[in-house]
């Protein structure tokens, strides 16, 4: 079992390392991730949302629905914990 686990881990790791060959270098300012969508957030955020903290404006406005999902996830966790564990002594 442990041996099988080790083999799976090695295969997965090798696959991930294989993919790094084509990845952009670390902290490359011209990588696609930094040039396709995100520049608009940085350049327009103050103009469009009057919020200097770009992370906050993206979190709560541009991708606000993700944050609703995120709040729902933690709400779900709280409700699940109550559902699973709460027992009232009678």
């Amino acid at each position, binding site marked *: 079992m442990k041996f099988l686990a080790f083999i799976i881990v090695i295969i997965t790791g090798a696959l991930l390392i294989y993919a790094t060959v084509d990845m952009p270098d670390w902290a490359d300012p011209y990588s696609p991730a930094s040039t396709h969508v995100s520049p608009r957030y940085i350049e327009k955020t103050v103009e469009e949302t009057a919020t200097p903290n770009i992370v906050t*404006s993206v979190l*709560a406005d541009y991708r606000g629905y993700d*944050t609703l999902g995120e*709040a729902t996830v933690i*709400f779900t966790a709280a*409700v699940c914990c109550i559902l699973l564990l709460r027992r009232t002594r009678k």
Partner: protein
Amino acid sequence: MIAQFEDVIIQTLCRLLIPFIQLFALYVIAHGHHSPGGGFQGGCILGASFILLCVAYDMEEAKRRMSEKLNVIFCCLGVIIFGGIGVVCLILGANYLDYGILHKLLPVNIPEARSLGILGIEIGVGFTVMAAMISIFLNLASSGEHEETLR
């Protein structure tokens, strides 16, 4: 096991510290527009202050300050605030969560309406995260009985 041990230094120190922790949490929530922070971080700190109360005193003390019922209501209220702001936008004729439309209700222009909308949902998220953290901690620490039975 936890409840039997009462230390006057720890309790006094916590009593002194907790208001400042909570004040700092409110600052983190409210200042999320200008510095790192926001609803999640502030909510976590706010929850941590109650968890500190549980650890330093006992669960009874914490539950006197924040009863279980109130906690669940806070948990729901936070997400209701968040979803409700979205529904208000929907009723006013914009898309869901489009805070720009709130300028019809508030005496500000569109970008500032967005900024205020962000503040509103940060507060909602803060409530939910605080209540969820307290609820998860209480249930896990006492295995669901909300008494000091962990032995």
